[in-house]
């Protein structure tokens, strides 16, 4: 037992040191997931979905129109495109969905027309595909006009509507996506790593050299899992730091529970890579098999988009993919603050898969 422990710790220690000397490995385990993080963080990170992209075309020279134009541009709910000055260029952009709507203030907008107060009709243009956005933009404008109207003509207004936001502590879209990205990172680390370097070590005869020693496959497996877990925690730790500092990820769970979840995830997913890499004689055998197994998980386990968007029958099936409980478990612990007992079903599913995967890995492993 003491001998096994020495073998396992020495092998794990040296392969961790080797990892930090390998720039290509660092790129694929740290930089590559970070690129994904920035891409998806850029898409889901800012709450830009609640702002409307509009163009404001002011054709009036009245003082009121100038003031109203400035007021629209200061409005947070509108993101005014300053480059659009003509209706034709606005239509062009609307047809490509770059703009949600265009607000036109006609030449007589804000003129007195012989009365004591200014008046006018603002026009909202929109593309047929953006009807919903246009309706919202229109109602926002109406709200603003109502405020102005009551200031100009003192009329009693018995009924009013007030809106208030209630998403205190709710999940932002980024929070939801982030655990999927962690899943993707674990998948890459656990499957593409070993399916690449195990056949390579066989080809070079590195494993043959180990085969002639008394080292047992389980000792070699344990050392590999151990070093992979350390590398995984390192890579995922960096992702967490970036997610919290750059994208304001809301970490609500217990960090220790989260580490347990992540290590369990790495353990089970790494087994897939170990089974494929340990079985394959060369890269030509390993690569296609690795792709066949990982691609469905990459898209169906909630890696890049949430599983609740899928039809119900597909959700039922994908619940049982090996990566799904890993991603769900991590999300529930990290963003919903659940305890390890509460994610029991996920841990149970991970445990079942781990037993199955490693049973296969031991059976099919060959040193050369």
């Amino acid at each position, binding site marked *: 037992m003491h001998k096994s422990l020495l073998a396992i710790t020495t092998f794990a220690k040296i392969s961790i040191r*080797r990892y930090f000397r390998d720039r290509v490995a660092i790129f694929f385990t740290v930089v590559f997931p970070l690129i994904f993080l920035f891409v998806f963080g850029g898409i889901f990170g800012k709450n830009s979905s609640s702002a409307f992209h509009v163009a404001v075309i002011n054709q009036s020279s009245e003082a009121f129109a100038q003031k109203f134009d400035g007021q629209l541009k200061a409005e947070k709910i509108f993101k005014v495109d300053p480059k659009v000055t003509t209706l034709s260029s606005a239509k062009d952009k609307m047809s490509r969905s770059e703009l949600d709507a265009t607000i036109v203030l006609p030449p007589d907008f804000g003129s007195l027309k012989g009365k004591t107060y200014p008046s006018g009709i603002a026009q909202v243009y929109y593309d047929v595909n953006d009807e919903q956005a246009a309706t919202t933009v229109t109602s926002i404008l109406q709200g603003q006009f109502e405020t102005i109207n009551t200031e100009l003509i003192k009329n009693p207004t018995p009924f009013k509507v007030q809106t208030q936001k209630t998403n205190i502590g709710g999940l932002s879209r980024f929070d939801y996506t982030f655990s999927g990205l962690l899943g993707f990172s674990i998948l890459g680390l656990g499957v593409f790593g070993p399916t690449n370097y195990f056949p390579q070590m066989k080809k070079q005869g*590195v494993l043959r050299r180990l085969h002639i020693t008394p080292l047992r496959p389980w000792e070699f497996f344990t050392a590999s899992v151990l070093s992979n877990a350390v590398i995984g925690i390192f890579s995922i730790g960096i992702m967490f730091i970036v997610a919290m500092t750059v994208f304001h990820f809301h970490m609500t769970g217990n960090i220790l529970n989260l580490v347990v979840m992540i290590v369990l995830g790495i353990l089970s997913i790494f087994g897939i890579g170990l089974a494929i890499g340990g079985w394959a004689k060369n890269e030509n055998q390993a690569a296609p098999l690795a792709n066949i197994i990982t691609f469905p998980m990459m898209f169906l386990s909630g890696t890049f988009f949430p599983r609740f968007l899928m039809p119900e029958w597909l959700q039922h099936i994908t619940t049982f993919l090996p990566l799904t409980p890993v991603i769900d478990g991590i999300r529930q612990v990290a963003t919903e603050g659940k305890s390890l007992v509460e994610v029991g079903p996920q841990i149970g599913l991970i445990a079942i898969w781990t037993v199955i995967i490693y049973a296969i890995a031991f059976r099919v492993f060959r040193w050369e």
Partner: protein
Amino acid sequence: MAEVILKVTNLQKSYDDKKVVKGVSFDVRRGEVFGILGPNGAGKTTTLEMIETLRPIDSGSVTLDGVDVAREPQKIRYLIGVQLQSTAFMDKVKLTELLDQQAAAYGERVDSHALLKDVNLDDKASSFVEELSGGQKQRFSIAAALVHQPKVFFMDEPTTGLDPQARRNLWALVNKIKAKGTTIILTTHYMEEAEQLCDRVAIMDKGQIIKLNTPKNLVDELLEKGFKKERRVEQANLEDVFMDLTGKGLHA
């Protein structure tokens, strides 16, 4: 006669109905250097791989230091050291780390610097294997194969692809290992090497041992049959010139 450490009896192996090793038997004595010679495809490597526990034995038996190879392969692995033909080690790992790792596979801790010194590589302790020359790699792989002080040391074509200096260095190293009492079994293509190093040689062809004796006796036997070689006594040959000009230093 010295005690027998390895006893091979009627060893056989076939691949897809093709017999590669057809009933090989020989004894190796403790402390000797035993050579196996033969053309490519003679079955040398397969024979050795069966003894080294790398390949299952079809029939026949192998006993090494009293341990049956087929029955207790794990025990055998502690007794033998194998220097492989390909000198592949993991890249981006220091020589000392590789030795530590190799020793850990046997559950041992070693003084890796001292082991490197034994093969004249102590100045390369922090280098990676990929930075070594051919001769250095070969010496390192010997150091790695000997971390656990095996009783029997197998070397598969140890000098193939080396230049003359590196070859001579390696011969000196083999003699050093022998002097420590390790039994050595080696295969080679070079007759000069066999003559220089081996106490006894077995000549294999087509999966069988066709001759086994000391190099000197084999030559004598041939001469007794009336063999005559066109003999020309040379004072020196081109290799001597090369060695004289480039020296025998250990920088190979």
